[in-house]
C-alpha cells in the first residue's frame, strides 16, 4: 500500500505534534462520545423527581454524583445538560461563522459602498460590550434557549465579519484572483472557487478560537435564567439552580461548572493547536527569545601562552546554530586580532558568518538558537566572553560598542533620540541629567546632525535613514569606546548617504587617533564588516576575508586588493566593478555559499573553486606566507613549500 499525504492527513499530523492540543482533542472526543451514547446508558431519567432522595452527596449508592434538590440524578442531568450546551454552542458558532463570513467575504470582495455600509453596521455592533448586546437581544425576544442561541450568534457575527473581511481584502489583490476576474469568471465563481477555499483556514481558526467563548456565553445566559427554561436544562441553568444551594449542597453547583470548565478547556487547547497549524503567524512565541548574552559552552582559560599586543584578540571562536537538536557550526575557529587604532575590514558574501562574528564578540549573538562552543575574545588580555553578565554589561556600550545595519529597526521606536542617547551616557558615566544632555547635544553635532536641539526631541521615524545612522554612531561613540564594531553600517542606506556616513566614520576615527596621542590613550580600533570591497579600500588598513565560517585570507588592504592569494578572494575581487576597467567580464561566483551545517569537508570553498583538486577535501589551516599574508589554501601551501 502506498502512503499518500493528503492535506487533511498532514493537518492531523501537525496538530498531533502539539501535545496539548492532542489532549484537548481526546478530552473533547470523550465528551462527545459520552453525549452520543447517553440515551443508551443505564442512567435514571434526568427529569424524574424523587423527593425522598434529595440532595444526596456524590458517591452515594445508585447516584454516583449525588442528586439535586428534587432528587434527580446529577450524573444523568449533567450528561443530558452537556448535550444541550454542546448543541446550542455549536449551532450558535456555526450560525455566527456562516453569516459573519458571508458579510466579510462580500464586504472584502466588492469593497466600495457595500463594504463601508456593511462594516459600519458591524462596527456599531462591536461598540457594545458584547454580553450586554446579547442581554438586549434576549430582552427583546424574551428568555428562552432558542433566543439565547440567536443572541449569542448575532453578537459574534461582527468578529467573524471583521476577520474574514481582512483576509479577503489581502487575497483580492493577489494575482490568481485578478487572473480569474480578468478571465471572465463571475463574481459568484471567484468568491466560491478562488476566495472561499483560501479563506477557509481563517474561518476554521476563528471558529476554533471562539467556540469556547460561545459555550461560556450561552451557559451565562442560562445561568441568569434567560436561556434554557425548565424542564429543559443545560449546564448553565443547572448551575443557576444550584446557586441557591451553595451553602447546603455545594456539589449541585460545583459539578456543572466543572463540566463547563473541562469542556471549554479542551476546546481552547484544541483551538490553540488548530491556530498554530493553520496560522503560524499567530503562534504565541514558539521560538525562545534571545537571552541577555550568548551561551558560552566551554570553560577554557585565556590562551596566555601567546602574549599579544592586540586590543581585541579573537582566538578559535566557534559559534554554532542549535536547530532541532542539531548543532550546525556557523563560525569555525575564527582567529584574528585588532590592534589599537587599527581598522580591520571583515568581508565576504552574505551568510558566510560576518555578522555572527561581530555579534559573538560581545556575546550578543541571539541565544538560543546560537551558542559559542569554544574560543576566547580578549580585550586587553581579559576574556570577555566568560565575564559575569554584570561586568560584561559594563564593557558593552563603554569599551566595546556597536553600530548595526538597519538604523530604523535598531533604534527604539517609542523613545526620542535624546532619551536613547542620554540613556547610554548615564549608564556608563555618572553625570547629572543636565550634563548628560549637554554631552548628547555635543555628540549629535559631532556626527554632523544639523540643529541637534530639535533632533533630540525627535523620534527615529521622523528622521531620514542617514540621520538615523548618524544617531546610532553617536550612541556608539558616546562613551569613547576602545573598540567599535560596525556591522554593515552603510548597507541599508542610499549610495550618496553611504558616502557621507563613511567619510564621517573615517573622520571620527582620525580625530580619535589624533586625540589619543595627546591623551596617551590607545586610539579607537574598528572592526568594519561589509560585503563591499570598495568601502574596505577607503577606510580599512587590514582585511580579513571570510567564507563558510572561516577566515580564508588576512593581510594588508592594499596588498590583498592588488594581489589576492585565496581563490575566493580572487573571485570576490573579480566581481567588483572597477572604474575604467573593461565591464564585459564582470561575473559572479557560480553557485551560492554553503548553508550552515552544510559546510563541505576540507576547504570550505572547494565546491565552487575552479582550481580545486582532491587534496582540497583535507582540512587546511591558515598559512603564513613570507609576505606576512595569511591564506587558508592548500595550493598556496604547496607553492610555499
Amino acid at each position: 500500500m502506498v502512503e499518500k499525504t493528503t492535506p487533511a492527513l498532514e493537518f492531523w499530523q501537525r496538530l498531533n505534534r502539539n501535545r496539548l492540543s492532542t489532549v484537548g482533542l481526546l478530552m473533547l472526543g470523550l465528551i462527545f462520545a459520552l453525549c452520543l451514547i447517553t440515551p443508551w446508558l443505564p442512567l435514571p431519567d434526568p427529569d424524574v423527581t424523587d423527593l425522598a432522595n434529595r440532595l444526596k452527596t456524590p458517591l452515594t449508592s445508585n447516584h454516583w454524583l449525588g442528586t439535586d434538590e428534587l432528587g434527580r440524578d446529577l450524573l444523568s442531568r449533567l450528561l443530558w445538560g452537556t448535550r444541550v450546551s454542546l448543541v446550542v454552542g455549536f449551532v450558535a458558532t456555526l450560525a455566527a461563522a456562516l453569516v459573519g463570513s458571508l458579510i466579510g467575504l462580500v464586504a472584502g470582495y466588492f469593497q466600495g459602498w457595500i463594504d463601508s455600509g456593511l462594516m459600519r453596521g458591524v462596527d456599531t455592533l462591536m461598540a457594545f460590550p458584547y454580553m450586554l448586546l446579547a442581554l438586549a437581544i434576549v430582552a427583546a425576544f424574551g428568555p428562552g434557549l432558542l433566543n439565547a442561541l440567536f443572541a449569542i450568534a448575532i453578537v459574534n457575527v461582527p468578529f467573524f465579519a471583521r476577520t474574514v473581511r481582512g483576509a479577503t481584502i489581502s487575497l483580492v489583490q493577489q494575482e490568481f484572483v485578478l487572473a480569474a476576474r480578468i478571465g471572465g469568471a463571475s463574481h459568484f465563481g471567484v468568491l466560491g472557487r478562488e476566495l472561499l477555499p483560501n479563506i477557509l483556514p481563517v474561518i476554521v481558526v476563528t471558529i476554533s478560537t471562539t467556540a469556547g467563548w460561545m459555550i461560556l456565553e450561552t451557559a451565562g445566559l442560562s445561568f441568569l435564567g434567560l436561556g434554557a427554561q425548565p424542564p429543559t436544562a443545560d449546564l448553565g441553568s443547572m448551575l443557576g439552580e444550584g446557586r441557591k444551594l451553595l451553602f447546603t449542597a455545594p456539589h449541585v453547583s460545583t459539578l456543572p461548572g466543572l463540566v463547563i470548565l473541562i469542556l471549554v478547556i479542551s476546546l481552547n487547547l484544541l483551538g490553540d493547536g488548530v491556530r498554530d497549524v493553520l496560522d503560524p503567524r499567530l503562534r504565541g512565541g514558539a521560538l525562545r527569545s534571545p537571552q541577555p548574552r550568548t551561551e558560552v559552552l566551554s570553560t577554557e582559560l585565556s590562551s596566555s601562552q601567546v602574549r599579544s599586543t592586540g586590543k581585541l584578540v579573537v582566538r578559535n571562536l566557534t559559534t554554532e546554530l542549535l536547530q532541532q537538536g542539531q548543532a550546525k557550526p556557523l563560525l569555525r575557529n575564527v582567529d584574528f586580532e585588532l590592534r589599537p587604532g587599527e581598522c580591520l575590514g571583515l568581508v565576504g558574501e552574505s551568510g558566510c558568518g560576518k555578522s555572527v562574528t561581530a555579534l559573538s564578540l560581545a556575546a550578543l549573538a541571539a541565544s538560543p538558537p546560537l551558542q559559542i562552543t569554544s574560543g576566547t575574545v580578549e580585550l586587553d588580555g581579559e576574556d570577555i566572553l566568560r565575564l559575569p553578565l554584570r561586568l560584561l554589561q559594563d564593557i558593552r556600550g563603554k569599551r566595546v560598542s556597536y553600530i548595526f545595519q538597519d538604523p530604523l529597526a535598531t533604534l527604539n521606536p517609542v523613545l526620542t533620540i535624546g532619551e536613547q542617547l542620554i540613556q547610554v551616557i548615564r549608564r556608563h558615566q555618572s553625570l547629572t541629567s543636565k550634563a548628560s544632555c549637554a554631552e548628547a547635544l555635543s555628540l549629535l553635532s559631532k556626527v554632523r546632525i544639523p540643529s541637534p536641539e530639535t533632533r533630540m526631541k525627535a523620534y527615529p521615524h521622523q528622521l531620514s535613514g542617514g540621520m538615523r545612522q548618524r544617531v546610532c554612531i553617536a550612541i556608539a561613540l558616546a562613551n569613547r569606546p576602545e573598540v567599535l564594531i560596525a556591522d554593515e553600517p552603510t548597507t541599508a542606506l542610499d549610495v550618496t548617504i553611504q558616502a557621507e556616513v563613511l567619510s564621517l566614520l573615517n573622520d571620527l576615527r582620525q580625530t580619535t587617533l589624533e586625540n589619543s596621542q595627546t591623551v596617551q590613550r590607545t586610539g579607537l580600533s574598528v572592526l568594519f564588516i561589509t560585503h563591499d570591497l570598495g568601502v574596505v579600500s577607503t577606510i580599512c588598513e587590514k582585511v580579513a576575508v571570510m567564507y563558510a565560517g572561516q577566515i580564508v585570507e588576512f593581510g594588508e588592504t592594499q596588498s590583498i586588493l592588488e594581489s589576492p592569494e585565496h581563490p575566493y578572494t580572487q573571485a570576490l575581487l573579480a566581481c567588483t566593478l572597477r572604474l575604467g576597467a573593461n565591464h564585459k567580464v564582470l561575473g559572479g561566483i557560480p553557485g551560492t555559499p554553503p548553508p550552515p551545517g552544510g559546510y563541505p569537508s576540507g576547504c570550505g570553498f572547494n565546491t565552487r573553486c575552479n582550481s580545486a583538486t582532491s587534496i582540497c577535501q583535507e582540512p587546511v589551516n591558515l598559512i603564513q606566507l613570507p609576505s606576512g599574508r595569511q591564506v587558508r589554501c592548500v595550493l598556496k601551501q604547496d607553492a610555499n613549500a
Partner: protein
Amino acid sequence: MLRYTIHRLLLTIPVLVGISVVVFLIMALIPGDPATAILGAFATPENTTKLRAELGLDRPLIEQYFTWASNLLSGNFGRSYALNRPVLDELLERLGPTLLLAGSAMCVCVLLGLISGLLAAVKQYTWVDQGLTLFTLIGISAPAFWLGLMAVSLFTVQLGWLPASGMYTPYGDESLGDLLVHLVMPAITLGLVASSVIARLTRTSMLEQLRQDYVRTARAKGERETAAVIKHAFRNALVGLIPVLGLQAGFVLGGAVYIETVFQWPGIGRMLVNAISTRDILLVQGGVMIVATIYVLFNLLADLIQHALDPRIQQSHG
C-alpha cells in the same frame, strides 16, 4: 494632542448615535406588541390602544426614534413600569456601584494581566511560565459566575473571611472598610477572569518585542537586563496592548452582569437581569445605553493613552 483629543471626541458622536439606533431598533422590533407585553394580563383592546398612543407606538418608526433620542438627551429616559419610578433615577443610583466594581476589576485585570504576561515571557518555558499558562488557561475557560460561586464557598462558607453578598452589611454603618470587605471578592473574581486574556496577549507581545533589534541595541549599550526588558521591550509592547485593555473593559462591563448577580451587588447589571425578566423595556434600554456609553468612553480613554504613548501614530494624525 489637544487637536487629536477633540478630533477623537467628535468621532465618538456617530458611534453613540449608532448605538442608540441599535438599542432603539432592538426594542422597537420586539415581536408582538410592547404595549401588550407591558400590560400583560390587563391587556384589553382599549387599554392597549391607550398605552400605544401614550408610548407613541402609533407613529412612524423614525419619528419614534427622534422623540426617544431627544428625550434621552434631555435626561428623560422614561418611567420604569415595574419599579414605578423614573428610569434615570434608578440608573443613577446603580451607576456608582457598577463603576466601582468594574473600575476595581479593571485595575486587578491590568495589573495582574500585564505583570503575569511579562513574567511568563521573561521566564519563557520555565515552571513560572508553565504555571502562569495553566492559570490563564483556566481563567479563559472557566465561567466567571462559577468562579464567583466557588470563591464564596471557599472564603465565606469554609473560611468565613469575607461576606458573600451585597455592598454593605445590612443595617451597618456603611463605612469604607465595610465596602472594601464586600468589594474584594467580586472585584478580584471579575478582574482575574479578565486578566487571563491580557496575560496571554502580553506574553505573546513581549516575546515578539524581545526578539526585536532595538532590544539587542539596548543590550549592546550595556543596559542592565531589567532596563532592556522594561524600558525597551515592555514599553513597546504596551503601545499595542492599550487598545486591547480598552476592549477588555467591555468584557468587564459584560461580566459585571454575572458577578453582580452572584454577589447581589446593587449595580446596573443585576438591574438589567431583573428588568429583562419583568420585561421592563424602558429600563433595559436605559441600562444598555448607559453601559454602552461607558464602554465607548473607556475605549476613547484607551485611544488617547495609546496616542500619547506611541509617537508613530501622532505623526499620521498630524
